């Protein structure tokens, strides 16, 4: 156990935390905007998977991870139109629509995988590599944690600030929040509720896809059908645990990531605690946290309630 507290391990734990958190951050920030616009879109898991699949296909055919990322997020933006149609036009139950999309995504992925991937020579593809920022990455302790990551990791750290700025400091963010709290307040001013919700869903979906594509391109050397392995659900949990506030969500994600990183390290250095204990820790911790910190909820009042005029 003591070994974990020594310098190099500590640095490694932090670096692992950053790595684990990055894809989650992308998806969470997207989903946050969607939920702040009142749409309870739980299809993050499926959308991440879709992003990963598309990224894999494009990266292995074109060889360009950047193009792959672009196409993946565009595909996810496109697929979000289904969610928009079902929830905004038909005003159907959002929770179920999300569930259906998840099923569809995992089914289609498996279907595609079994039809087109298995039994063929696995394609080579280029992903995102770790970049050591000159000089900075040599700083002791902080260097490897902060400056020896993938380029997009820096974007993921900027993202919560941008999303916060968008939501709280721009006119459009104010409107999005207004839609989530009381869509009628915007409607009576003659501004379209559906259009904003549609855009918010699209942004959320696009960012979820970003997270999935990044997981694929940044961390994996091949595609497997359950690549996402529950991370999409973790994102939804983090949003609730972060009480719908950007920086608290970042906090929640970091706590999850830290606990996972500690768990891995503890196993590697051979701490004599069943590793299940570390696996379960994030969930127990956030449950206790939620029960303990009973602050005023910031859940958007209109979350999950379809809006119609009459």
């Amino acid at each position, binding site marked *: 156990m003591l070994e974990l507290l020594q310098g190099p391990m500590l640095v490694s734990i932090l*670096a692992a935390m950053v790595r684990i958190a990055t894809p989650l951050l992308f998806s969470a920030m997207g989903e946050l905007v969607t939920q702040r616009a009142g749409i309870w879109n739980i299809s993050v898991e499926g959308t991440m998977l879709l992003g990963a699949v598309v990224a894999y296909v494009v990266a292995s055919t074109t060889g360009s991870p950047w193009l792959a990322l672009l196409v993946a997020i565009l595909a996810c933006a496109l697929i979000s139109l289904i969610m928009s149609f079902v929830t905004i036009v038909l005003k159907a139950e959002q929770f179920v629509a999300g569930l259906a999309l998840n099923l569809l995504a995992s089914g289609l992925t498996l279907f595609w995988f079994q039809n087109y*991937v298995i039994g063929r020579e696995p394609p080579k593809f280029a992903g995102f590599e770790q970049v050591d920022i000159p000089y900075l990455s040599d700083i002791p302790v902080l260097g490897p944690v902060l400056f020896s990551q993938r380029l997009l990791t820096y974007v993921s750290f900027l993202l919560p600030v941008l999303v916060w700025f968008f939501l709280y400091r721009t006119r459009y963010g104010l409107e999005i929040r207004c839609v989530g709290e009381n869509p009628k307040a915007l409607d009576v001013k003659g501004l379209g509720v559906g259009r904003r919700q549609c855009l918010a869903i699209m942004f959320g979906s696009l960012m979820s896809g970003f997270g999935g594509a990044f997981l694929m391109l940044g961390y994996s050397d091949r595609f497997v059908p359950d690549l996402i392995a529950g991370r999409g659900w973790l994102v939804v949990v983090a949003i609730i645990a972060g009480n719908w506030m950007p920086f608290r969500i970042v906090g929640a994600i970091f706590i999850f990531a830290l606990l996972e*990183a500690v768990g891995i390290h503890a196993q590697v250095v051979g701490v004599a605690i069943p590793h299940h204990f570390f696996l379960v820790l994030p969930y127990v911790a956030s449950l206790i946290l939620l029960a303990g910190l009973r602050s005023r909820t910031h859940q958007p009042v209109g979350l999950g309630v379809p809006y119609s005029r009459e």
Partner: protein
Amino acid sequence: AEPQKLKIAIIMESNLDVGWSSTLIESLNKIKAQLAGTIDVSWEHTDPMWGDDAENAMRFYAESGEYDIIWGHGRYSDQVKKLNAEFPDTMFVVAGSGNLPLGGNQYWLYKRQYESSYLLGMLAGRTTKTGVIGLVGTFAADDVNDEINAYFDGARSVRPEIMHRLSFIGSWSDNALAAEHANVQIAAGADVVFMLTDNFKPCQEHKIMCFANITDQSKSAPDAIASSAIIDWQPDLTWLIEEWQKHKAGVAFNGNIEPKWFSMAQGGVDIAPFHEFDTKLPDAVKLELATMRQKIISGEFVVPMNTAEPK
């Protein structure tokens, strides 16, 4: 004379992208070519099925009466147990750890890779600079533990003071998690990592040497994978076909009660070629490994088998 017909129905445990399953098909293809003219081997396989779905599939194949062998490529003895008495002329095969010995018309295959993994351990021991070697596993199980223990034993046989890092990701296919474990082992000093689960990206990134498991994966990361512990089902198939022919000739099925596996000498396991690493590895080490491989095959050296859960 007309070649004898042998039809096999295979219930798969995983998709064919997983080495455990794809190697079986490869070996079948080789056997088919080898026996062409005498026995006409053909097979059909499902996509992954477990539990009562698998039982239903087995029953479906058995009831059709077309198949001589029903092969559950994993933990399927529970299912076989419900069928084997009903279909006494069908040969049932199960593979790997976690099965029950039923005997009779159930044959139980095992894959023990401790011999090849001992060799990889020696290679690791000879090449590590830090004196720390790692291994990322999926789950602890009987037929994994032997491999892990042999790997570390092999390393210690050439460098006794070696330290090891070991962790299980608790999943079959969480790729990203596997990478994270590898990263951590590398951070904890390991500079040679045996990946029982696939993802060689961390090894490539940190420019360290890796080993792959089950199939020769060099192609997916030629700059990182020095060699792989590989398996081959040809001896298993040959044995089973012999048993099947005996049954045809009127001898009762006599399935094994004890786990049965084919050693390196019998061609059941081996290590893959070094590919790009052929030029990078010191000749002395390569020679040492080749010599040891010969000794294992000839029986001059017996790799100790230890299935206790490694720590």
